[in-house]
């Protein structure tokens, strides 16, 4: 579970605004569904997302059950200096997944 796909440009010019896409495989079980025997399926969702650039927060999101399965986010970042862009997802139980990409600023 929890496959992460990231789309981050490898290089950028200083001051350029680059587009970032981040997807994580997750059912985002809403807690409103019922199983085949009518039993309630408990909620199991990712509640938080954060993107940091050289340790500083660039963008973050709070999710509720209305976010579709395999949540995808497209957002932007200003390329400043070369460094690590780190992505972290945290679910309702505190479990977290992260991945990172290196951005080279020419």
């Amino acid at each position, binding site marked *: 579970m929890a496959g992460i796909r990231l789309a981050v440009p490898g290089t950028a010019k200083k001051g350029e605004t680059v587009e970032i896409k981040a997807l994580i495989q997750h059912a985002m079980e809403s807690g409103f*569904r019922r199983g085949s025997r009518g039993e309630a399926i408990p909620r199991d969702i990712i509640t938080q997302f954060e993107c940091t650039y050289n340790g500083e*927060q660039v963008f973050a999101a709070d999710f509720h059950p209305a976010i579709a399965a395999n949540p*995808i*986010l*497209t*957002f*932007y*970042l200003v390329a400043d200096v070369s460094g690590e862009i780190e992505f972290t997802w945290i679910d309702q139980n505190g479990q977290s997944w992260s991945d990172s990409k290196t951005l080279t600023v020419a």
Partner: protein
Amino acid sequence: MIEQTDLNRRRFLTVSSGAVMIAALPLAAYADHEDLVRARGELFGDRRIQDGRVTVTLPPIAENGHSVPLSVSVDSPMTPDDYVKRVAIFSPRNPLPNVAQFHFTPRSGKAEVSTRIRMSGTQIIQAVAEMSDGSLWGGGKETVVTLAACVVL
């Protein structure tokens, strides 16, 4: 003959003004929604929300309510002195009024975000943006949902 034209014009005006009233009705209806108003109050208090600067993009018709592409953009220079702090998304018809909250920084460069949401029925999705100066701006977009996610959401 002249009378006939006149009558048509009068009838046209009556019908068209009626259509305008009907079109304006949903605006009044969603603002009354208690859950949405409460959820908005929990995040922003009872501060005044001005209309504008926030653009919500949704397809006019969503065939599948399980995954509807949503984009929100806010008109802001995104400089350290003037940027968008956060944008909250609300739904008047889903089981829960809160959809998501997005936090921006001047390093975001652009106050724009896209994701995919669940919609349990035709409704006007609303977005409220809080600027770095504390002002609130709001916008919304209606989507007709043919297969609602509410059946199995």
